[in-house]
């Protein structure tokens, strides 16, 4: 056989063998993983049972026992503790904290200093959820860590809000990129009215448009009623996104005050249709008969969403609103306004009754 032919022959053999061994490796790996998962599932169920028993105050002996038995499975033990934290409340959460402190805390605190981000990530979540007041400085340091660790810390704080870190959370929020905004939203919402003064302070700061819009959204979402003057002040903000959020937040506050209604009426005449649409929707929630003309005018808007929101807003004003809707549906000057009024009326009143 020629030398080139031998080379080709051997190359083919090598390729076939390589492909076969690759397939075998994939299968073997799959089997190993499957078995490992099954094994972990069994261990996890043991841990679940033992943790349940350890939550019984009459069994103080169980906690040292847990530490001894599952020293080789810190990840699984932490997973179970976090899962129980998610479904249980009250004194049992205190017991879970005790279990964590006695079994895993020391190890996880050491892992917080690890150079491996994944290790820090796992440890951060558990340390923050089961944190005591003495852990506040650690949480603050975690908030200054990489964006990924910061995100894990924020979401863990949502599960277990620590009031002492509110200032640190706002300071981080000011510096942080826009990527973690949803995590801040969940966390700040979980703090509730306790963040009122901070939100007020930050609404007055020169923040990027997205963050101002975010704070307006939070104000309406919690809701922080006493901040309505700040929202009204910002209703002339140059950025459209902010004005949309202001219009929505003013509606969510559910405070039919004359100042708020006036601000919403102003926003209903805004240059951007998104702002107008939101303001009309919020005006409906005010249920003020003084706004009936503004809402009826909204039905003649050139934008479909504005007409839709104006139509449904009128239905919230009772008989008077419905009559105005009927009037618009019967006029012939603006076919689109008439169609929208008719659609809204048919949607809320069963056929035959209108």
């Amino acid at each position, binding site marked *: 056989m020629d030398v080139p032919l031998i080379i080709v022959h051997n190359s083919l053999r090598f390729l076939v063998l390589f492909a076969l061994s690759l397939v075998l490796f994939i299968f073997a790996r799959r089997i*190993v993983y499957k*078995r*490992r998962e099954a094994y972990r599932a*069994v261990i996890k169920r043991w841990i679940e*049972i033992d943790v*349940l028993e350890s939550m019984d105050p009459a069994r103080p002996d169980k906690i040292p026992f847990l530490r001894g038995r599952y020293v080789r499975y810190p990840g699984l033990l932490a997973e179970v503790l976090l*899962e129980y934290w998610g*479904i249980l409340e009250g004194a049992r959460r205190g017991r879970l904290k005790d279990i964590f402190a006695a079994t895993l805390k020391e190890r996880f605190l050491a892992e917080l200093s690890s150079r491996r981000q994944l290790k820090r990530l796992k440890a951060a979540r558990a340390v923050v959820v089961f944190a005591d007041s003495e852990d506040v400085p650690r949480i603050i340091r975690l908030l200054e860590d990489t964006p990924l660790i910061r995100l894990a810390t924020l979401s863990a704080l949502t599960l277990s809000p620590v009031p002492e870190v509110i200032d640190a959370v706002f300071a981080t929020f000011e510096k942080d990129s826009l990527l973690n905004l949803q995590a801040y939203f969940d966390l700040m919402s979980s703090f509730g009215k306790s963040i009122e003064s901070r939100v007020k302070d930050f609404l007055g700061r020169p923040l990027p448009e997205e963050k101002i819009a975010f704070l307006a959204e939070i104000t309406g979402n919690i809701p922080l009623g006493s901040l309505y003057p700040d929202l009204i002040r910002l209703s002339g903000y140059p950025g459209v996104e902010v004005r949309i959020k202001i219009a929505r937040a003013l509606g969510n506050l559910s405070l039919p005050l004359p100042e708020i209604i006036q601000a919403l009426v102003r926003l209903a005449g805004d240059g951007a249709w998104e702002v107008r649409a939101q303001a009309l929707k919020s005006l409906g929630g005010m249920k003020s008969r003084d706004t009936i003309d503004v809402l009826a005018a909204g039905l003649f808007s050139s934008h479909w969403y504005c007409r839709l929101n104006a139509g449904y807003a009128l239905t919230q004003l009772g008989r008077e609103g419905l009559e105005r809707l009927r009037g618009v549906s019967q006029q012939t000057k603006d076919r689109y306004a008439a169609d929208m009024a008719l659609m809204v009326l048919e949607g809320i009143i069963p056929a035959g009754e209108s």
Partner: protein
Amino acid sequence: MTKIGSFLRKIFGRPVGSGENRADGKGEGLGAVLEETEYRITQLDNEIKKNLWGVDQDKHKIGKLVDLAIEKLEKIIALKKKEAGLVLSLEGEDVSLEQEALSSSAEIDRLGEDLERFRALVRLLSPEEMAEAAVEPLPAPSAERRGPSERVKVLDKPRILIVDDELLVVKAVRYFLTKQGCEVLSSSKPAEGLKKALEERPDLILLDVIMPGMNGYEFLSRLRADARVSHIPVILLSALSRESDILEGLGKGAADYLTKPFSPEILYSKIRKILAAQNGRSPHHRPQ
């Protein structure tokens, strides 16, 4: 008692089944079956213990051994089910411990969603636990299904059915309520839960709202539509915590609404209150 029996006494805390009632030590029926099956478990158990408690750390080998032990226990359950004077019985998706069997050393658990498939999870005991198991009181035999004339006993050992697709919630509720003296039935599928409610007629149902297949409200409507079970009070246990969700649940006929995460103590106190109101007794009455 045989050598094997004495080993099992250490493992399970008490003599298992009716094997020791036999006069000749061999016998037929349940006793013979038990000894034979237990012998195989005992052999395995020594090996598993050796592996788990530090001699050999090969996880895969342990996994294999645990699987084998599980298989053996499954056989025991299947065999005992056929015999009179059951030691273990299968109830729908649960394997419940009846009489003096397996006590705290063996934990029976269900794997996966397949309701027809059961597995026994063998928990191995450390030497301290073994000593403890030998003196730990065993669970009392479960109560017979109650007839209408026995309703007054409801507060003493209420039968609670929990229907929730979140297995961890089922486990936690089962544990805490059992500790309080309740008899807990469970189902992770609403259709199965409905069937169980009709068959078992529990005193109260704990019901999740968001479940695959049928949501809690639909479950509730079907329950209320059936005269045989329409009287059973239902507590909704849901992660939906908005005012509108709670009002909707109560509007559909739930006796109470509890949001997740929940406090087991509050849950139990609500159960007692509802059952006491239904039976015309004070909720402060404690079972003897």
